[in-house]
C-alpha cells in the first residue's frame, strides 16, 4: 500500500458511490416510512404478499434484478420512456429496489415495537395524527431509523451485480467503487485494487461501528 496512489478516476468513482448511497438512503427513508407503517399496523390480507415482495432482493441474485431492470429500461419495457439505462438516475432506481428491505424491515420492526398504547395516550391528550407521528413515533423509532439508514447506505455501497448489469461503466456517472475494484482486479492491477478495497473495508467497518456503538450506549443509558 505504501507508495500507492489514488487516481482521479478512482476519486470520481468514490464520489459517485457516496452520492448514490446517500441519495438512495434518503429516498428510501422517505418512501419506506409509510410502507413500514402500513406493514406494522395492517391486518389486510395483502400484507403477506407485500412483505414477500419487499424481501425479494434479500433472496434474488443482484444479477437477476439487474437483468430485469435492463429489460424494463429497454425500448419494449415499461420504463422505456424515461431513458434510464446507463444513467445515474437508473442506478438510483436500481439501488433503491436492491436496498429496499434493508430500510423497510428495521423501520417496520421499530414501528411495531411502539405498540398502540403511547399513540392512544397521545390521542387522548389531543395530539393530531401528524403531531403524534412527530412527537411520539419518530423519537421512539429513532434506533430503527439509525439502523435503517446505516444498513441502506452500507448495502448500496457494496452494490455490484445490479450496477454491472445496468451501469455501462461510465466515469463520473455510473462507474462506482465496486466496479472500479473489479476492473482493477481483472486488469491485474492489484495495487490499485488494494487501495480501493482497503478503503471500502475501513469505511464499512466504521459505519457498522457507529451503529453498534450507539446501540450499546443506549443500553447503558437505559
Amino acid at each position: 500500500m505504501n507508495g500507492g496512489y489514488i487516481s482521479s478516476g478512482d476519486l470520481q468513482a468514490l464520489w459517485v458511490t457516496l452520492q448514490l448511497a446517500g441519495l438512495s438512503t434518503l429516498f428510501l427513508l422517505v418512501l419506506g416510512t409509510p410502507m413500514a407503517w402500513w406493514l406494522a399496523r395492517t391486518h389486510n390480507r395483502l400484507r403477506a404478499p407485500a412483505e414477500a415482495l419487499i424481501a425479494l432482493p434479500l433472496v434474488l441474485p443482484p444479477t437477476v434484478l439487474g437483468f430485469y431492470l435492463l429489460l424494463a429500461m429497454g425500448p419494449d419495457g415499461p420504463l422505456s420512456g424515461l431513458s434510464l439505462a446507463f444513467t445515474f438516475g437508473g442506478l438510483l432506481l436500481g439501488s433503491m429496489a436492491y436496498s429496499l428491505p434493508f430500510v423497510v424491515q428495521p423501520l417496520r420492526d421499530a414501528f411495531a415495537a411502539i405498540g398502540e398504547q403511547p399513540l392512544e395516550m397521545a390521542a387522548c391528550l389531543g395530539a393530531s395524527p401528524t403531531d403524534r407521528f412527530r412527537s411520539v413515533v419518530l423519537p421512539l423509532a429513532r434506533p430503527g431509523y439509525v439502523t435503517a439508514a446505516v444498513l441502506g447506505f452500507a448495502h448500496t455501497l457494496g452494490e455490484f451485480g445490479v450496477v454491472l448489469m445496468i451501469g455501462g461503466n461510465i466515469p463520473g456517472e455510473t462507474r462506482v467503487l465496486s466496479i472500479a475494484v473489479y476492473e482493477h482486479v481483472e486488469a491485474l492491477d492489484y495495487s490499485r485494487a488494494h487501495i480501493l478495497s482497503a478503503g471500502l473495508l475501513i469505511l464499512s467497518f466504521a459505519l457498522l461501528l457507529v451503529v453498534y456503538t450507539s446501540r450499546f450506549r443506549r443500553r447503558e443509558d437505559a
Partner: protein
Amino acid sequence: MPALRVLLLSLCLLPGMAASAEIKVAVAANFAPTLRELAEDFSADTGHRVLISSGSTGKHYAQIRNGAGFDIFLAADSKHPELLEAEGVGVAGSRFTYAVGRLALWVPGEPGLGSPEEYLRTADFTRLAIANPRLAPYGLAAQQTLEIWQLWDQLQPRLVRGENIAQAHQFVATGNAPAGLVALSHLRAGGEPDGTFRLIPDSLHQPISQQALLLRPGEVAEAFLRYLRGGAATELIQASGYQVPVDR
C-alpha cells in the same frame, strides 16, 4: 453372493471407465458456444467427455495460477496464456492461436447499414456499446479502430462499456444501446439478419488472437488439441464467425 456379483460387475466396468476419460477446459465466454459444438463432435468420435467452464479470461488466469485443475485453457487473448507460459505454468511450447475474433458494428434498427465509419461519424445514435478496452481484447480493438478513425475522443460521452464482449452485445440486444461494436461470433450465434451489421476491417486493429495452452500433459487433452487444429474443427470455428490462422 449378490455382493460378489456387484464386485465382479464393477471390475468389468473399470476398464471401460478408463477408456472414456474426461478433460476440463477453461474457455473464454465468447468461444463457449463454439466449444460446446466442438466438444460434442469430439465426444461422439472418441467417447471422451469434455467438461466446459466458461468465464472471463482474467478470472480463469487467476484460478489457474492458484492451482485450479483445468487441463486446457482457451483464452480470449494471447496475453494471459503468454503470462502463464512465462510463469512456468502449463506445458511449454503448447501455446497456439486457435481462433481470431472479428469485430463488427451492429445496429439492429438499421436493416440496410452502410459503411461503419460513415455511420459512426454521422448517425444520430444515443449510445455506442463496446467492451471495456482495459479488460477485453474486443474492447481494445474497438478503441484502436475508433482512434484510427479519429472518433475516440468525440464519441466518449456516448460510449457504454460492457465488462466483456458478451455484455456489450447484451446492451445492444436488449435495445438499451442502439449500436455496438460487437463480436461477429455472437451475431452468428444469435442469427442476426445480415443487413444490420458490418464487419470492421481487421487492418484497423491488432488481431484479436485467442490462444490455447495445454496446462498439464495428458493423452486425452493432447488428442483434443490435435482435434482443435484439424480440418473439421477449423471449418466449424470459421462458420462460427472466427478466422483461423493458416500457419498454426
